[in-house]
């Protein structure tokens, strides 16, 4: 049992810091550059992402292991996973509107953006590719979500300051955001080799 916990903890650290989705795997960049302009949206987005990722990781684990492997249709995993994610997002949208309307008004707008996002789809695909167990899949989803949140919040706090800076005209907007991300990514390469799995 103790072994398991160590493994899970390592997986979370690895997914969130060492193989950070944004800085070393380059996923979810559209959302990353799109919503990192303000701190408030960044926090809302992070919460929504982490929860959706964990749920979709667990649901797709069950579908993959108990439906797709026995029926021998793993080659359809792209179609099936995107269906699961879209259905899940739609469901959580409806449930949240009924159960927690306050939360829905704050976070509902981000839910709509999630359904076709590569980072959400990548979690089940990687889980299936690496043959993770159920707990490992959830840990991976959680770690990835935390890593994405970390990236978004760092970036949002830098960009709020960047608004006041005097940036050369051609670099204004997207290009300078890329250069800043490059610098953060450079810092994150320092984590590589921290844990080897």
């Amino acid at each position, binding site marked *: 049992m103790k072994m398991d916990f160590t493994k899970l903890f390592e997986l979370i650290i690895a997914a969130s810091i060492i193989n950070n989705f944004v800085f070393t795997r380059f996923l979810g960049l559209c959302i990353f*550059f799109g919503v990192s302009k303000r701190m408030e949206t960044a926090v809302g987005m992070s919460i929504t992402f982490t929860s959706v990722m964990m749920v979709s990781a667990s649901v797709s684990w069950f579908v993959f292991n108990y439906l797709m492997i026995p029926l021998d249709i793993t080659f359809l995993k*792209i*179609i099936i996973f995107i269906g699961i994610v879209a259905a899940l997002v739609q469901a959580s949208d409806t449930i949240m509107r009924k159960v927690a309307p306050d939360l829905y008004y704050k976070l509902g707008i981000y839910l709509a953006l999630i359904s076709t996002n590569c980072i959400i789809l990548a979690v089940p*695909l990687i889980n299936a590719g690496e043959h993770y167990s159920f707990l490992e899949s959830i840990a991976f989803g959680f770690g990835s979500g935390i890593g994405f949140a970390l990236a978004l919040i760092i970036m949002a706090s830098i960009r709020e300051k960047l608004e006041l800076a005097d940036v050369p*005209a051609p670099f204004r907007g997207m*290009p300078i955001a*890329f*250069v800043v991300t490059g610098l953060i*990514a450079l810092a*994150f390469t320092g984590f590589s080799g921290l844990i080897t799995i």
Partner: protein
Amino acid sequence: MSQQKKISYKELFLNGIVKENTIFKLALSLCPAIAVTSSLRNGFLMGVAVMFVQVMVNITISLMRSFIHPRIRLPIFMLVISGWVTITDMSMAAFAPDAYKQMGLYIQLIVAFASILARAEMFASKNNVMPSMFDGLGMGIGFMFALTVISFFRELLGKGALWGVSILNAKPLLIMVLPAGGFFAVGILMALFNWIDKRYISSTTTHH
């Protein structure tokens, strides 16, 4: 894009390459632009894969457009896209196994490209087959062009090589093939595109 006036194939074609270049202008579908561009060959292959999917999706949707009920169009589009992505994914795994090992995940994630869905929704679902095909071709080539340029600079500076053949004897800048270098390369190339656009293109033609 205005649907009223007749647009020539050439204009459609150039629109995707220059005016609405997916990466440099719209800043969409950025993930593979950085992830697979550390070598020219991978960048080029990714570009070809995206172009293929874009063209085939545009053709399929344009052929099907009169049968699709508007209310269920998005799920249908997603199904068509993921079908073509699966085909690309499997052919890539069969014919280019080495490259597939490095970029398999990103090929599968073409399905989540905002740009492909956007072209299907905005263009292919409203136009005939031929214009849709040219629109897809222009968009795809624009994407391929962007990926090729980025990976050209990254491989040349980072490894001193092109297409796996080393041509520079100088000590390479390792940072360019690291993740961080990808962000720097895209940022600097975007700034360059902005500068060229402002200086030479936008002054003569008006942006729609």
